[in-house]
């Protein structure tokens, strides 16, 4: 993947500081070099390497160019939402006759708990969603529902890492970091990888959710905070907003112009002046992308922004669309801490969790479709696990963790629309048909971006490391359009 070559460094840094987006002669030279068209000796890496977010051409054909991932941290209950299990009704309140892998000890019970909610088939595909997700029902024909997800580690943290960074340990680069490392960004005025966090709390594993791990810090997710400044370092300090910072930049510009007059021809100095101008443009772009005031009432209605229950989440969905429209590579929309971890009281808490996201996400998918962006944008919905068919906590029933078989869906970007892939057993506990491991999902996703899970590597400590790193990852051809 390396496009680094010291012979271009000097000219490149000047170019970057001024306008990193255009493809000029310099970029062209890198592309030629990248393709190995010249038998140049591979130099040992001695000098520190520099990295950029310039757009990079993936080695393979790409269907997708952006991704919006909705992370429902805690683990949505598949048998209550999208994987109906009539068997549970037949065995209601009886001891389950099969072995269950429990996580929590104290509340564990063998008693079967049927779903409280009715299911219906939707669209031409006849995809099942329960009455908690009417919006998802409306977009069923756009979705590729996988019912056979598997990570096999029954803790939130480890399973989050598996799904978001390829293996069960903390400290590795997240999916968004890999995509921006592999592809750069199409908009140099915005961060390539943005994280729209929940205003209340962070998911389990906190900042690791958007960590660049051992990839260069440049590829780390940039967080949009719930309070000012919404993006650290990308917004002026509160007391300098408005004209204040412009005055500062003008004064700084005057200082620098006088300085360079005495040092004519010093390209670095010019480049740094240009880098401040680019930074100012980035600030404007970022705040422009976040500002939804000019969106029509109809659009706001589509995302549920006109209703209290969906306003906050709908706003983030709409911002996600605006970012993708502007060429941002990866948008991670996070739920709050354990907001789908329904160990108890599932009867009241699951409907609330669903209500918050159902209409906004459905609105986003419809909107992307309307704008012609869905073909090139992957939308992902899912948590790090699903839940068990038996009761947890008799007094206030919920469901315990289940990472052995759970559901998530993908839409757009080359995924097969209106398709259900894989199945769990009749209890909904274990994925039994067409199992998709987290690494299979990753290999498939990278394929759609024109990347190869074995080819997209980063050399570190003498080893080439990748997102799937030595796991037997398989591209799941069956879920590709």
């Amino acid at each position, binding site marked *: 993947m390396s496009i680094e070559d010291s012979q271009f460094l000097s000219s490149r840094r000047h170019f970057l500081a001024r306008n990193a987006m255009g493809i000029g002669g310099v970029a062209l030279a890198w592309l030629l070099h990248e393709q190995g068209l010249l038998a140049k000796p591979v130099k040992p890496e001695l000098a520190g390497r520099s990295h950029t977010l310039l757009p990079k051409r993936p080695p393979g054909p790409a269907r997708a160019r952006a991704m919006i991932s909705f992370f429902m941290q805690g683990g949505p209950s598949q048998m209550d939402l999208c994987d109906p299990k009539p068997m549970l009704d037949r065995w209601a309140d009886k001891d389950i006759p099969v072995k269950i892998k429990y996580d929590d000890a104290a*509340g564990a019970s063998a008693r079967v708990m049927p779903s409280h909610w009715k299911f219906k088939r939707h669209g031409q595909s006849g995809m099942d969603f329960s009455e908690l997700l009417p919006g998802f029902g409306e977009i069923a024909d756009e979705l590729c529902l996988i019912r056979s997800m598997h990570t096999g580690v029954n803790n939130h943290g480890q399973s989050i890492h598996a799904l978001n960074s390829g293996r069960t340990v903390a400290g590795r680069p997240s999916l968004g970091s890999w995509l921006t490392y592999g592809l750069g960004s199409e908009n140099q005025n915005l961060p390539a990888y943005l994280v729209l966090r929940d205003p209340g709390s962070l998911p389990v594993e906190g900042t690791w959710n958007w960590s660049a791990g051992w990839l260069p810090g440049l590829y780390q997710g940039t967080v949009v905070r719930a309070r000012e400044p919404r993006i650290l370092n990308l917004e002026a300090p509160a007391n300098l907003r408005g004209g204040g910072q412009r005055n500062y930049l003008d004064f700084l510009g005057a200082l620098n112009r006088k300085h360079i007059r005495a040092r004519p021809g010093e390209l670095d100095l010019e480049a740094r002046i240009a880098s401040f101008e680019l930074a100012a443009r980035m600030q404007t772009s970022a705040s422009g992308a976040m500002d939804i005031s000019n969106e029509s009432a109809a659009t706001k209605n589509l995302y549920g922004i006109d209703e209290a229950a969906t306003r906050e989440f709908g706003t983030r969905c709409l911002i996600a669309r605006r970012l993708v429209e502007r060429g941002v590579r990866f948008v991670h929309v996070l739920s709050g801490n354990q907001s789908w971890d329904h160990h108890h009281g599932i009867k009241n808490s699951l409907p609330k969790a669903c209500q918050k996201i159902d209409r906004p996400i459905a609105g986003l998918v419809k909107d992307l479709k309307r704008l012609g962006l869905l073909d090139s944008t992957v939308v992902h919905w899912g948590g790090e696990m699903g839940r068990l068919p038996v009761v947890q906590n008799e007094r206030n029933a919920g469901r315990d963790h289940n990472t052995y078989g759970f559901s998530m869906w993908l839409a757009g970007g080359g995924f097969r629309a209106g398709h259900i892939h894989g199945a769990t057993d009749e209890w909904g506990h274990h994925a039994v048909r067409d199992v998709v491991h987290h690494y299979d999902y990753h290999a498939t996703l990278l394929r759609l971006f024109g990347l190869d899970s074995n080819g997209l590597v980063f050399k570190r400590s003498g080893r080439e490391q990748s997102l799937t790193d030595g796991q037997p990852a398989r591209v799941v051809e069956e879920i590709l359009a």
Partner: protein
Amino acid sequence: MQGLALGQAATVTFEADVRPILKAHCFHCHGEDGSAKGGLDVRLRSLLLKGGQHGPVIAPGQAEKSLLFQKVRDGEMPKEQAKLSTAQIETLRQWIEQGAKTVRPEPDSPDEWITEEERRYWAFQPIQNPPVPGGAANPVDAFLLRKLNANALGFSPPAGKRALIRRATFDLTGLPPTPAEIAAFLADETPRAYDRLIDRLLASPRYGERWGRHWLDVAGYADSEGHTERDAERGWAWRYRDYVVRAFNDDLPWDRFIREQLAGDEMVRPPYADLAPDQVDKLTATGFLRMAPDGTGSGANNAEAKNQVMAETLKIVSTSLMGMTVGCAQCHDHRYDPILQSDYYKLRAVFEPALDPANWRTPQGRQISLFTAADREQCAAIESEAKKLDAERQAKVEFFIERTLEWKLRQAPEALREPLRAAYNTPAAKRTAEQKALLDRHPSVRQISPGSLYLYDREFNDEIAKLNAERKKVDAGNAADKAEALKKIDGQIRYFRDSLTKALLDTMAKKAADLRATKPEEPFIRALTERADKAPVTQVFFRGNHDQPKAAVKPADLSVVALRNNPIPEDDAARPSTGRRLALARRLTDGTHPLTARVLVNRFWLHHFDRGLVDTPGDFGKLGEPPSHPELLDWLASDFMKHGWRLKRLHRLIMTSQAYRQASRRLAKIDEIDPDNRLLGRMNVRRLEAETLRDSILFVSGQWNPRMFGKPVPVMEDEVGQYIIGVSTNDSANRPTGKTVSVGAEAFRRSLYVQVRRSRVLSFFDAFDAPAMEPNCTKRPTSIVAPQALMLMNNDFVLAQSRAMAGRFQRLAKGHLDAQLGLAWESALGQAPDAGERAQARAFVKKQVAVFEAQKEKQPGLAALANFCQALLSSNAFIYVD
């Protein structure tokens, strides 16, 4: 660029022209390691004539009829994507056309052959002491001028005194000069003024911090183990950092500095106890060889990680001291330099007794304790008390397990209680199928364990709540047996209260932990030592695979520079250790080694002029850059050695040169003839490095904490994942808790003392190109990207420091805005503002005061001055040095 053009002889020969091409592109499949695809070995002319399964591949005099030429011309060979260049193909053609000549008879075997031509490479020649050309008092100038004059150039005019003091102060201390220092220098009009300035700077303790940092880049200094995601912290690496700073400040001769770093342990007789200070120093120095990432201390104690520690250590040693990319010979002979694969393993053999995979020691297991017997006694006494507390807690755990079991059994049907109890009390492996099935139906019984007890507290708390409600009801009523009933309820409440586990067990655990925390901290040295009893056999690994060892090798220096009599013993009988490293260290510093001194002086030069005489300071091989001034490089190296390997003397020599003192302004003539300024007809303009920038901001803001040495300042993640200075208070799932732990003035120490955790490079440093140590950095890049501008515009650190700076100058010149502006300006930029600049500054502050007043800012004057300071700190005049 000029450099050393070896020049292509009129006749194309196998050794000089053809073999290097074949070696780089063809040996791998056709000759190396017994691989001869198509039966063809191309490593000798005779073997090309012998050919492979299609017969001879060259027909001397007839390129077009030679298979070798046809294949490369048609792009069929090499099979990899990278093909030969047109020039290389043409060389092959000419060679065959001219009769496929060799310079001299070839050896019988192509293995381990280093050609005369390879041996003649400049970097392997003895260091010369060339005569100093005339024309300048300072030899540095004489050499430079000769080349400048040859190109119709000369030196630029001298830099102004202000530019000069700023340049020298940054160079030697990494900090800007103060206005007082500037004034003193300006006022000193004696001829010795500049020499005195250099003397003062070299005597400053800041000098060691500045130059120590340069060396720590090459040594790959880090406070964490790296390799794995865990990236465990290294508790005691900082002693090596402090050793380096002291060595620079003390002007420790470099021959000794190198010997101590490579073999300090071999100079101290074991056992390493009750050590004298100089012995502690020598052992600490070997921390140099403990800087490589070490997965075996970070959750990966496996063969691959051990091998990697060795590989990275060799990379650090060879790039820092030999300027050779020896690591390229780990799998096969170096493709471009005459470094044999066996050379790599001979060098490895020097270090293997200390880094022996067969008798591996993890980082913890390698530490040397500085504890005294009295310290140990005190610890043992505390530990035995703590063990008593552990035992008390364990008894309580067992009590709780019994309680919890009783409680869960009470919820089960009566008939199942005894069978369940029996099943639970049977060890898992011995349970009958029936018992297992029974427990599967009662998972909440099965799962009771010391670790899960706290989960059951919820049910006990529910019971307590219920009982309290009942008690209230009974208490409000007037039943005859009220007192009796209340007593009964209270008893039940007490029972459940006594069953609550978490609070009590946590308290008990904390009590033991608190007691243990009163032990005196055991100080360690992170050192490299050998085990006296075992000297391993080093073997060449087939294609670098550590699980495919082949022929055994003995310790030695690289063949191409090795002495006829190998001075490196297998086992020095006079010492408990093998003596291998000490012997290598002596060889490297014996004054005749062609690489060591050249590599060192080049590195020193680089930090004065922004570019080395060899611009690839870690690679003096064929892929590196040739020296711009080979005679000067040699003269400096030999002068350095002749005068006791003393760096401070070399600084004086370089910094008093006309070359160093000239102006940096670009001149059309130089730009035309020498656009990269390799001839040094002017000084280079340089950007401050990441650490220097942060240090300088702290210095002018007045917040700077000058404390030297000791444990690193901690680095933490903030809520968005930026790395900032501080103590992390995230919970076990890495979520911010909102708590803060003040690190006080530690936050304002020099960057050198900020923890270098490989996976958590301070975001400010990261933005300004600080290296991630994997494993080391021989040259830093300097990028110019918008995130750096954003950092200077909006980052909390910069904003806070700007405010502190404003406060400082408000206090210093109370009520005199003009003086405040002038002082701030000169402190940051080293220049006093002229009248126009003063007016501009005043106008800006006035404008910002109005902005802040309109926003009802409490101290609009301070805020405006702070914003002015911020502009100074983000200006090119601050970030760059002329």
